[in-house]
């Protein structure tokens, strides 16, 4: 009972502005000390498919993300990097799934099929790296992530 009350309290303490703003599809992106001038947002859309909604066989939604970014510096100004790459990352940070390269302006990437995930953008040496190595420049939480508060993780405060 105590745990549930605590969870409710945590929910109420999340600033209203940071919660799902346009429904279950909109992600606000936050910058890090690596990229203080960057701003961005993402809109999830169901991945293309023959059904009305795209899901996996076990019922997880399959989303592509329309990522809109401004103010990212040239990647090389942050180190030995040539591109920015978007990742879908499980909340426990154990699984990173590469969605695709992004840039200032609008980029369509995908597909993410985690129930809850962080949308993380890193600077990388190539546009299609096997794993993430470079610094985080923008990050956000899938709207489903607001079912649980994990926004204070230090990884996304520029410490990693």
């Amino acid at each position: 009972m105590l745990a549930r009350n605590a969870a409710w309290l945590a929910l109420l303490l999340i600033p209203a502005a940071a919660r799902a703003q346009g429904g279950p599809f909109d992600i606000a992106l936050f910058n890090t000390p690596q990229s203080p001038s960057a701003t961005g947002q993402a809109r999830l859309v169901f991945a293309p498919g023959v059904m009305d909604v795209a899901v996996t066989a076990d019922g997880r939604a399959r989303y592509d993300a329309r990522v809109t970014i401004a103010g990212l510096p040239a990647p090389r100004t942050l180190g030995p990097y040539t591109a920015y790459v978007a990742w879908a990352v499980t909340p426990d940070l154990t699984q990173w799934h590469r969605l695709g390269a992004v840039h200032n302006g609008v980029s369509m990437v995908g597909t993410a099929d985690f129930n809850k995930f962080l949308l993380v953008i890193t600077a990388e040496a190539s546009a299609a790296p096997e794993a993430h190595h470079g610094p985080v420049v923008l990050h956000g939480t899938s709207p489903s992530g607001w079912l649980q508060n994990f926004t204070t993780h230090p990884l996304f405060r520029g410490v990693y």
Partner: protein
Amino acid sequence: MMMRGIAGLGLALALAAAPAAAQQKPPVKPPPKPAMKPLPGDTGMAGMKMGADTGMAGMDMGGDTMQMAMPIPMPKGMIMMPGLRNLLPPVTPFLPGEGVDPGTLPLARPSQLTPMKNGDTLDLTAMLVRRVVKGHTYVMYGYNGESPGPLIRVPQNATIIVKFHNAIDLPTTVHWHGLRQDNRYDGVPGVTQAPVAPGDSFTYKVHFPDAGVYWYHPHVREDIEQAMGLFGNMLVDSPDSNYYSPANAEQALIFDDLLINDDTLIPFGKEAPDFALMGRVGNVLLVNSEPRYSLHVHQGEVVRFYLTNTASSRTFNLSFGGAPIKVVASEVSRFEHEEMTPSVVLAPAQRYVVQVRFPKPGTYALVNAIQAINHFQGEFQAEVDTLGLITVDSTPASPDYARQFAELRTNRAVIADIDKYRPYFDKKPDKTFTLTIRPRALPLATVQFMNVDTAYFAPVEWVDGMPDMNWLSTSKQVKWIIRDDATGKEDMDIDWHVKQGSVIKLRIFNDPKSFHPMQHPIHLHGQRMLVVARDGVRVANLSWKDTVIIPVGSTVDLLIDASNPGAWMLHCHIAEHLGSGMMTVLHVDPR
């Protein structure tokens, strides 16, 4: 029961309505329990019978002494909210056949294949039947004593006469879902006909202009009548024997659910639907009215499944134990391109025609696999319900359609037909609707919870995570709304006229900021439509449809081929949403 061969295939095909052929082998392993079940320990009230002997003072029971299951079953890990425990929905409980001895009623038979030719007449009676589900006997409804009703199979372009008789205890009609036919026989009370009173009759002339899978059901109190068994399939055969790629067998499967607590059906609201927030989501999943489906095939056989969802509210996510699924058609036509899919997402009233190949001997489980949301813990929970088993023996398929199955066809005729409509794809919407809800006088605990639980609503809710709140909401307290953005008018007040022959772009937005956002399967009667864009993204592979899911927060662009004159309903097919007003009329004025 052996089925007739399909022209061009020359094979004996088994349909789901043929239990002797289809169900020879017993299941190899017991199915998992349904994901949703009562938790007596949580509430201490499970199985309690409502009535004068309950000893619960202060309960508003309206003096009714009908025994009532209480409380309703809660999903695993959820408890009934304390503020709701002593409440009942403000309606008189109703179940079919009150006072009728079940022993006097016929035991419902499985659906019988009913082939019909142009000009044939079918006698169809809605009646009380006795159904046994998981060993418990219930008084329910059926057509001609069958559940599902007769499987009507007709050639494309046929017209049949249906002499309908109402032998149930409520007024009713028959709606022929998906057929672009004469408006007079659309079966909508107050729009195309008067309801057929108990004991009365009505003659329908039913025309089948498009090949595919369709279904029939009442258009009166669907939350009761359809939920209690009034539904059946119609298969319309194209004259083209090569219309679908070849299959070794055919099965028509109707997916449905039933809400029970131990041995008791959860009653319905007599004056108004209950479960008005989310619709009634059952805890026993049914295929062709049975909790367990089974099929026996040979190794490598291709089975063509005609899938229909007749549930009040539940959206299914169906797959066949990893066997590859090829989607060939949706509701009113084939797709432009055949396509493989990991699963079939089937909302109420939707249909798909899929072909599934069973490559290896063994057992394949037909499952509904979804991600439920625990609203207290804020977590997703995977749930899998086994609906049936397909047993594959080691006799090789003959003929072997492996090659034809692997080929993904392009349907040139469908593309050519849709080509005529492509110039309209990017036109400005002719009409924009917003889907929302207006609550009034709901229990305080419900309102408080909904106000807090606003962080996230799933685009599609697969299961009812809060059945206590849902049960207590009736259409007296909840108004579901289709709002015309241009005029602000709502539901039946919208005055919408278009000229026959026009091509209408309708944009529908499902407002995520409403009091209780939820997906809506929106159905348009008597016309066909294309889903041309979702959230601004063009849909790549089209088919003509009559029912489309509008997820929470989504905007869907529909192109309506307004070819069929008359007054046609556009409504949510969640029975309780429809019963709470979520409907309007498209008037197609003759040219």
